[in-house]
């Protein structure tokens, strides 16, 4: 059986689930950010696969992936800046201990 659209979609779903597990279960804020990057990359794979197999001439999926990359870069820069700012004030980046705004 040759490689088709479903293979890429399943790969993307597996990567997204791994990222979802990491984002929910980890305590270190940096690992949570890394898991979110994995989720963004997984969605990008699904976009490119749809673009390749369903509308090969339009390339719309690839344009969307370029914008996902822009947002991911902005998110990484701001997220890591927030993590470093929190670490300066509280000496920890354990997500379960950063609970100032918890009701």
């Amino acid at each position: 059986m040759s490689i088709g659209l479903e293979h890429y979609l399943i790969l993307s779903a597996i990567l997204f689930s791994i990222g979802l597990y990491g984002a929910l279960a980890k305590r270190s804020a940096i690992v949570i950010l890394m898991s979110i990057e994995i989720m963004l990359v997984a969605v990008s794979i699904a976009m490119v696969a749809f673009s390749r197999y369903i509308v090969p001439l339009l390339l719309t999926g690839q344009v969307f992936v370029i914008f996902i990359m822009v947002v991911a870069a902005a998110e990484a820069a701001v997220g890591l800046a927030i993590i470093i700012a929190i670490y300066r004030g509280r000496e920890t980046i354990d997500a379960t201990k950063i609970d100032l705004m918890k009701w």
Partner: protein
Amino acid sequence: MGLDIAFWVLAVVGIAAALAVVLLRNIFRAALCLVLCFLTVAGIYITLSADFLAAVQVLIYVGAISVLIILAIMLTREVQRGSPSSKLRIPAFVVAILFLGVMGFAMLNTQWLVSDIPPVEPTTAALAIKLFGEGGFILAVEIAAVLLLAAILGAIVLVREK
């Protein structure tokens, strides 16, 4: 045939690297596995004949975002603390498995209208026309530029010494 082998190798290595990111105790090794995962995704883009995106993936994710993450690990002394799981580990696992099951079921049971047309190659010029040409995404490109500027200014303000 070669494409099939490349896909399977890249998929297995990529999933193993992603699992290592969430399972390894040493956070620095997890970051290095994240780099490996990004590289295999660039390979996946090549098997999908998205050459421009593969190059951009290596430049932005492997080149820039990974360096930012490793820099943040160095600046916060996270390596000594390791990467423990919170007490929500088992519910998170259940949620992830349920999500994977639902998505897999939906994907495998949908009749996709797969087109027989061969993909555009190379994609760089076609993408440029799509982004900047008539009826393209020029407004979104401008907004993305403003977003990047705002993000960079915000990051500088956040980490500046008082």
